[in-house]
């Protein structure tokens, strides 16, 4: 199995990117592959006029990465009570055209961290809604890590044992989804 991680933060030392790396370690402990998508900043603003052929090269890269993955794990910060613009923009591109979107039926999960109290819960809720509207299969995973600068170690591992357990559960729930699809088929 291959899991793709997409962080909604571009910052080098992003808590969400670190949290995804920690999640990636758990994926690899299952003997599966994890890839952290690093091309978010290169994706241009969505413009239908630019939907020529397969679209701009950074968008093709994003779509291929999603298509190759069996599941996608998003980690998002919260900007002004919502999804960071770059992440929403990327999802908008990936959702086009609807009939051929690699997000359709793709098992996805959303987790998040913030330096505030609430761990990006509103941004996470909005991202789940947006992903569901694209046709993705959104896992009922919830992990909101507040005060991330205190509650994650330098490599993104949750310091609180309950949150570390919740991260393991989140990864396990997401990775169970593609297997359910195979059984149903």
């Amino acid at each position: 199995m291959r899991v793709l991680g997409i962080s909604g933060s571009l910052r080098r030392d992003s808590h969400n990117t670190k949290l995804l790396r920690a999640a990636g370690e758990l994926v690899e402990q299952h003997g599966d592959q994890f890839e952290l998508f690093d091309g978010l900043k290169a994706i241009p603003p969505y413009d239908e006029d630019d939907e020529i052929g397969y679209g701009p090269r950074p968008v093709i890269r994003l779509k291929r990465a999603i298509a190759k993955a069996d599941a996608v794990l998003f980690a998002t910060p919260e900007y002004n009570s919502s999804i960071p613009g770059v992440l929403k923009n990327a999802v908008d591109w990936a959702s086009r055209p609807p009939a051929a979107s690699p997000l359709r039926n793709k098992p996805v999960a959303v987790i998040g961290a913030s330096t505030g109290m609430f761990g990006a819960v509103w941004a996470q809720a909005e991202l789940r809604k947006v992903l569901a509207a694209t046709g993705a299969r959104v896992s009922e995973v919830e992990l909101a890590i507040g005060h991330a600068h205190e509650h994650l170690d330098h490599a993104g591992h949750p310091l609180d044992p309950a949150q570390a357990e919740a991260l393991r559960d989140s990864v396990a729930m997401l990775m169970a989804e593609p297997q359910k699809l195979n059984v149903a088929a």
Partner: protein
Amino acid sequence: MTQVTQQALPTGSWSADRIHSNVGFAVKYIAGTFLGTFSEFDARLSDDGLSGTAEVASVQVKDPNLATHLQSPDFFDAERFPQLSFAAKEVSRSGDGLTIAGELTLKGRTEPVEIVGHISDPAPDPYGGERFGLQLEATVDRTKFGLNWNNPLPSGDAALANEVTIIVDLQLVKQP
């Protein structure tokens, strides 16, 4: 006068003429009624009773974004549950009026439904066959089948009603 199943519907085997039949739904959305249809469906009447199926991926609406969303896990989840099905359990007739008790299976859940409608009795058609008509409606609560999506209006009310009317208009052709 009410008749039991065996007399309420014609005897023999009958299959839907899919060109001249329609299977769709109507649901209140914001200030009006939203209509959709399924282009791929089947219906039959035989000694086993009246039954039908529709392929949920064949849902027809005017916006391709919406068609995609309707097939997603938010609504029908066409990948895991590609078909909806109906089977009649009991049919009663009064004049040309019909009441049908049956079971609807949608998104992996089966719930009882009551259908009301009309029948037009078998008559020769221009193609050398024989056909009869059924016009049927049933109102179901979509949330009982796990179709829970909604969006709040500025007033706080839900944009999409839970009650959905399934509308079926069938011409059934006698099979040899």
